[in-house]
């Protein structure tokens, strides 16, 4: 885009805080993948607020943009964003894990705005490729974003998909890596090292930008440069912090899936506003 509209950084930050409140509130009575949701919250909010042409009225329009959440377990960040942008009723979040709704640890297409279910890692890069291919065949202008976890990049199908996307010159496709440095139980670099990640994606034919995934200006600069290079798959490596916004769980390997007590939730909501550091006693290393 040549005329880059300005963004209201302060407003985005305020909205992001509300999205994080929704995420924290979902991390009890069964819990959720709170750390990975908090790392992805800013980039998901940015994309829906400022970049994607997706709103309440065009969810079935074939000319809309698409966002595929491949890592899947960060879906609380997506639902929190949906609530703040008016795509979902706020009260519906109270149905988290209810047998009467479809809000659980991974996305379900019965929630308006969810393009495809996920949960099994390494699937949606290829589904996104199919959508991007069809848009190309039809000569459409819409764009296809696929958000990947960094741990997810262990799956060979992510790289298989890069080969195919490159072969078909899918420059309407944007892979966004939520590079929060952790996979389930371990720092990525201690288990299956991914770096130099920029070089890897470049070698696979991507046009790569690496940015601070919590900096709205950086996100805006990166996405405003779409398409990064004609004929090349766009790749954004968003450096993020797992648990971002809650210093008491940030970058902690043992706080992946969290099921907090009600008093902990109250404390963490105050912590989001910088009031204090929470004393957490609930079980760590809960693995789902």
């Amino acid at each position, binding site marked *: 885009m040549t005329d880059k509209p300005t963004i209201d950084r302060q407003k985005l930050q305020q909205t992001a805080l509300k999205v994080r409140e929704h995420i924290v509130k979902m991390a009890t009575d069964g819990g959720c993948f709170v750390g990975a949701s908090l790392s992805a919250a800013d980039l998901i909010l940015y994309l829906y607020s400022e970049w994607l042409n997706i709103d309440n009225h065009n969810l079935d329009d*074939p000319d809309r943009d698409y966002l595929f959440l491949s890592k899947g377990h960060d879906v609380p960040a997506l639902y929190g964003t949906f609530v703040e942008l008016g795509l979902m009723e706020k009260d519906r979040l109270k149905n988290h894990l209810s047998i009467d709704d479809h809000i659980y640890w991974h996305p379900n*297409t019965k929630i308006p705005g969810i*393009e*495809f*279910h996920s949960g*099994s890692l390494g*699937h*949606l*890069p*290829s*589904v*996104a*490729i*199919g*959508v*991007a*291919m*069809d*848009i*190309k*065949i039809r000569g459409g202008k819409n764009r296809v974003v696929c958000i990947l976890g960094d741990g997810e990049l262990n799956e060979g*199908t992510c790289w*298989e*998909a890069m*080969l*195919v996307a490159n*072969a*078909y010159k899918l420059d309407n496709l944007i892979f966004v890596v939520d590079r929060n440095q952790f996979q389930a139980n371990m720092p990525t670099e201690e288990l299956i090292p991914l770096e130099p990640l920029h070089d890897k994606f470049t070698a696979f034919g991507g046009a790569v930008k690496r940015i601070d995934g919590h900096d709205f200006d950086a996100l805006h600069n990166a996405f405003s440069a779409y398409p990064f290079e004609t004929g090349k798959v766009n790749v954004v490596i968003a450096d993020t912090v797992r648990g971002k916004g809650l210093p008491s769980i940030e970058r902690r390997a043992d706080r992946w899936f969290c099921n907090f007590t009600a008093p902990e939730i109250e404390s963490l909501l105050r912590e989001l506003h910088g009031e204090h550091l929470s004393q957490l006693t609930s079980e760590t290393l809960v693995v789902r």
Partner: protein
Amino acid sequence: MTYEELLTRQATADERFIVMTAENRALVRNIYAHLGNRFIDTGITEQTMIGAAAGLALRGRIPVVHALASFLTMRAFEFVRTDAGIPNLPVKLSSFIPGFLSDGNGPTHQAIEDIALMRGIPNMTVFAPADEDDLIKMLPDIWNYPAPSYVRINTQKSGYEHAPFELGKAEVIAEGTDVTILTYGLLFAQTLAAVEILKNEGLSVGLINMRSLKPVDEQAILEATSSKLLVTVEDHFLTGGLYSIVAETLLKHQTAAKVLPFALNEKWFKPSLLPNVLQHEGFTGKQIAEKILGYTTNAVQQTIAVPQFSE
């Protein structure tokens, strides 16, 4: 009409169709010239091909995808189940060289659990044509049916002219009171030969070409129990294929029958050219008939053609 001619006709007449392959072009070598960018070869990437097919189907397309049966159903199994099965998308799987048709390739290429795997996926439909004529008769209905499908592609020529196809219905070739043979796929030709031998030995013999394994024609199976013996003949593991389908059907309807299965019991088959494989594993028409009879005959086994493809 060949498979490729039919697919070309279908896809040129209906813009929704996309022809995909994971670099298995044996069945679709010439179609690119007709379809242009609606022909997509993803390279040797069965998983990515299925995921991309799901994405295309999300956009209203009907992807017909091609790969070797064992890689399509096993390497890409979770993609088929998760990306086509769960959302019930019309991804159409054309599996190349299923069952004995992988003849000389060896066990890596032997898809002899494909029926079991595919029919275990909710929403998936499963079909196994007896020969090219049967294949051509069933494909238009299958491709236009709003569900994912798995078809054991079989372009062998048996010379038999089949009845029109009806999804979910078996084709009753003959009815008999002593023995009824139930079969699908390329062994149909051998069962036709077996029926002749059994008739010459004085038996009243029925033969059913199952065609549609899911949904299955339960009524045809139940009616076959009026003969004294049911025989299932399939190039598949004993577990999960037609023998299992018959057992499930009889149990579901609280019916008992005497059933003799011809299948691969806990073993892969010895790789060789198709005629040698059938002879070695005991699946020629003469061998099937003589096992049913319990004695040898002086019937002459017809020559079995070597498949004309290999990949």
